[in-house]
């Protein structure tokens, strides 16, 4: 019995092995690939992988510039960073450049890779017309101003870097380094049919309203230079020359100008701008290309109030000549002169 069982098992195994062998032979016969076919498949696979790699690499390379552009735009766009930089640059012009304004609506921005350029024109009011005084191109690397290109088209531009020798608005306690008689003489030799811009320095510090009352109606008061405690010495604590700061004397009818008189007086706007610039002094100093020492000067104004020591006046040359008789005027310097446009 036992022997019979053993025999049956051997026979089963033999049948199974034969079946397995036949099946394997059949599979090999049916599905086997020749050497050539196998090489062909490997080659196709290799080429496909190579093509995929190349295409993905190109896609990643082509995504770099759009991704960087998006990152830059989001950097300047989020939180109004670009608008703040534009605002600081524009306000710096208003308070550091006598009788200079800009068209806020014409300020252009050009955003590059992690950088931004602000481009705008500046204007001077001479007589009753605004003349283009030049253009600015301020380059920001992220939010640091790295390059400022100023191109003035004025006939008598103010010096780019301030110095006591070239200062046109002189504090009553400062030394006068030019001869005002020569300037009055120049004005008297200008043709009557012209309009001019003059920088006048007063004999004493005055309240802005008093200056407005003092200046005759036949001429326009354009800009007021404010005493900030440093003008008498014309130097800051580090013995570096400083420049005049002030604000437009008249309401600017342009809606987008900060001095539009809608909610605040020009004096209040001036103080607000100084606080803004004191927080962004590096930007303001680079744009102005001058030492501003805003925090220190703001402190002085907060303590002593706004006192004016000089002003920019424009009007018909014949009317400007009459200002020589005013005892409150200590010195005068002639600025730009244009053909008659007084209305």
């Amino acid at each position: 019995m036992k022997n019979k069982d053993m025999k049956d098992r051997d026979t089963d195994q033999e049948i199974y092995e034969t079946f397995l062998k036949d099946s394997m032979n059949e599979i090999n016969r049916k599905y086997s690939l020749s050497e050539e076919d196998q090489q062909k498949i490997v080659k196709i696979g290799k080429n496909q992988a190579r093509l995929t790699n190349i295409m993905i690499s190109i896609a990643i390379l082509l995504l770099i510039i759009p991704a960087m552009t998006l990152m830059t735009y989001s950097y300047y766009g989020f939180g109004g960073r670009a608008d703040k930089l534009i605002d600081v640059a524009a306000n710096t012009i208003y308070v550091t450049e006598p009788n200079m304004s800009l068209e806020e609506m014409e300020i252009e921005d050009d955003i590059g890779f992690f950088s931004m350029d602000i481009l705008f024109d500046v204007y001077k009011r001479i007589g009753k017309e605004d003349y283009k005084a030049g253009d600015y191109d301020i380059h920001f690397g992220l939010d640091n101003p790295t390059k400022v290109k100023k191109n003035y088209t004025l006939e008598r531009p103010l010096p780019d870097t301030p110095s006591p020798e070239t200062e046109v608005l002189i504090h009553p306690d400062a030394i006068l380094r030019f001869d005002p008689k020569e300037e009055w003489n120049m004005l008297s030799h200008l043709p009557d049919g012209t309009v001019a811009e003059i920088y006048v320095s007063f004999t004493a510090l005055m309240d802005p309203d008093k200056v407005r009352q003092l200046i005759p109606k036949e001429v326009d008061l354009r800009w007021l230079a404010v005493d900030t405690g440093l003008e008498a010495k014309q130097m800051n604590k580090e013995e570096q020359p400083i420049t005049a700061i002030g604000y437009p004397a008249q309401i600017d009818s342009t809606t987008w100008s900060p001095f539009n008189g809608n909610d605040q007086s020009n004096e209040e706007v001036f103080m607000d701008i100084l606080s803004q610039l004191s927080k962004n002094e590096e930007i303001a100093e680079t744009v102005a290309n001058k030492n501003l020492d805003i925090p220190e000067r703001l402190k002085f104004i907060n303590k002593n109030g706004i006192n004016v020591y000089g002003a920019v006046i424009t009007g018909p040359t014949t009317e400007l000549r009459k200002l020589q008789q005013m005892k409150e005027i200590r010195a005068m310097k002639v600025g730009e002169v244009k053909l008659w446009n007084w209305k």
Partner: protein
Amino acid sequence: MELEIKKEHFAKIKFQKIAGFLSFLIGLISLAGMNAYLLLEADVLPDFFFNQLPMVGIILGIIGLFTRKSTRLYAWWGLGLNIFIYVFIFLMIVFAWSINAKP
């Protein structure tokens, strides 16, 4: 009859396979156009590279996703790149509008 159906079926599979690849290729061409636009700082947005081509790419990418017998890698990449172009344009408009906005 049966042979014809089989032929049609194979053609469909082949088209789905190619559609994904074409979508990826169109995505790359559109991206190259976008790079040229950004580097040349051109004023006018070329409609062909920023609208028509990506739209074709998206349609082909969706078709390519339905393939079952081969990889959908190309189709996914094609869809991603072409959708990115639309997202890029949208974000650029939003940012350009918010920076130095003028009425």
